[in-house]
């Protein structure tokens, strides 16, 4: 049953996996002396076709742009193939995260009276939708909801978070995170609805994502004016740390407390190698995500691999960004701090 409907796309994704940079690629890339060398090396990989026509003075941002293009290319292919019903919705859901970012970007841009075209350039290509350009014209949340978002899937999330509040009164970051929380919840609901293996693997990864967000929000809101209740409101309603861990996180006042909360949760094993650096926590989470994602490829007949593919691509972009920035800034000894090899 699965193969008749979604077999082709699954095979395509599995084919794309071969395009990831491998551990030996990363070790080779670490030997590069200049960004130009990185570019040269990457032309022999899947990025070759995107990189070869670029002009010579290479900047790290160019490499990042090309990697992003790669993701967009792959996903536009998925769109092109026109997946059968449950999968097509699933694929759309993958993009909602970017959509939220884009909407928030447009709204903040509009509040600061910036040019709409200029803002559109900044938007993430995966999160584009038809009516996004008209976002620049809105002035309050209700209008935003009524005119623009009503056709988009995001509208439900808006309705869930903010009913009558004025746009200016809501902190844009809280808005973003509330939207994201609603999105995660909805995605979780969808994957559970799909049932079977998909539900199983997606539950695992989405719980992880929810927990990571909770931890990140906690770490980033330490020492800010964000109140304890507000903080807890931003946490997702599911996840391995729900509800006890989240309650503890909401009470945290410094980094050590966060660490101890994590150690008491299901994530005790991932924190073992981490020290007290904030950077390391992020890296540990990324590593765990990569691990979980690549293990998804071990199983067949589920949609999780699309999610995993996207996340791994994101990580690869991060890797290359980190690598090329390190080399461009002559900080090669820091490379190991950021690069997580995927396979």
């Amino acid at each position, binding site marked *: 049953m699965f193969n008749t409907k979604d077999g082709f796309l699954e095979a395509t994704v599995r084919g794309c996996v071969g395009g990831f940079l491998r551990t030996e690629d990363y070790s080779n890339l670490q030997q590069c002396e200049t960004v130009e060398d990185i570019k040269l090396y990457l032309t022999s990989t899947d990025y070759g076709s995107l990189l070869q026509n670029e002009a010579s003075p290479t900047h790290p941002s160019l490499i*990042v742009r090309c990697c*992003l293009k790669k993701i967009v290319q792959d996903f536009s292919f998925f769109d092109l193939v026109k997946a059968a019903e449950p999968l097509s919705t699933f694929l759309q859901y993958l993009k909602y995260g970017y959509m939220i*970012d884009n909407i*928030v*970007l447009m709204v*903040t*841009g509009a509040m*600061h009276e*910036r040019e709409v075209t200029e803002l559109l350039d*900044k938007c*993430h290509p995966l999160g584009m939708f038809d009516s996004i350009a008209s976002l620049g014209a809105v002035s309050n949340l209700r209008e935003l909801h009524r005119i623009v978002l009503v056709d988009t899937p995001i509208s439900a999330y808006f309705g869930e978070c903010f009913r009558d509040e004025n746009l200016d009164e809501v*902190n*844009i*970051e*809280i808005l*973003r*995170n509330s939207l*994201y929380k609603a999105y995660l919840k909805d995605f979780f609901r969808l994957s559970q609805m799909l049932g079977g293996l998909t539900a199983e693997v997606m539950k695992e990864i989405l719980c992880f994502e929810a927990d990571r*967000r909770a931890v*990140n*929000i906690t*770490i*980033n*809101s330490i*020492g*800010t*004016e*964000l109140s304890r209740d507000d903080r807890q409101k*931003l946490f997702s309603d599911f996840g391995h740390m729900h509800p006890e861990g989240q309650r503890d996180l909401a009470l945290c006042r410094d980094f050590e407390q966060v660490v101890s909360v994590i150690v008491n949760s299901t994530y005790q094993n991932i924190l073992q190698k981490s020290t007290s650096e*904030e*950077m390391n926590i*992020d890296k540990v989470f990324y590593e765990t995500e990569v691990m979980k994602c690549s293990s998804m490829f071990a199983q067949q007949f589920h949609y999780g691999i699309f999610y995993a593919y996207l996340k791994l691509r*994101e990580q690869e*972009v*991060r890797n290359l*960004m*980190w690598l090329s*920035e*390190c080399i461009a*800034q*002559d*900080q090669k000894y*820091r490379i190991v701090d*950021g690069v997580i090899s995927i396979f």
Partner: protein
Amino acid sequence: MSTTNRLNVVPTVTVLAVVKNRLIGAQRGYKLLKKKADALSLRYRQILKKIVQTKLSMGENMKSASFAWTEAKYVGGDGIKHTVLDSVDGKAEIRVRAYADNVAGVKIPKFNACGSGSLIGASGGGSGETGTTTATTESKSELTGLGRGGKQIQKCKKAYKEALQTLVELASLQTAFLTLDQAIKTTNRRVNALENVVTPRLENTVSYIKGELDELEREEFFRLKKVQAKKKKDAKEREEKEESLSKGEGVVKGEGGSGAGPVGNLIDFANEKDEDLLF
């Protein structure tokens, strides 16, 4: 000691006094300017040392700042850039204030970075104040990257703030350096001019006037000697004449009477005049 290297003055005693006064003035000015030049070059060297230090730390700061940005991008994704950009409200959070510092009478411009709060900024300089003002403005952007990368953004912000501080300091030092350089050049030129042109010229003038006065005195002395010698000679002649006159009065009576009368008168006249001169 050529005639060109002195003032064109009439060699008199009054002028000598005037020139001597000027010489003393020049010497005092030279000493003062020399002190000023020394003070300036002392400061100059201090600033030079500081510039080298600041430049070195500048490299470090910039490096760590741009790396902090890389870290933020790594954690927060590339899109975080726009979030940060959009949360800027067009008001400069750090302003540079310029004021003048006084070193040995030379006004040296100095820059000071201070926070946007104009009240706090006006209350005094120093880097301590920036800490207090940023705390008030931070609350607006502190939630940036709440979902991911917030800590890194704050770190990046701090790093760039430090880099900016160093940059302002460096600019201040560089400007001070240039101004001091100019001032030192001018002062040194003045010192050298006083030392090598004005003072020797005045000294030459003094010695010239002294020489001229001596010359006059010697001339006078010589003239007096001459006059005295002439007087002595005349007196002797007269004595001799009187002697011979008294010996053979009868023989040259008519002759002597008619000839010696005006001569004697002349001598008498000269004598009287000499007396006048002598006294």
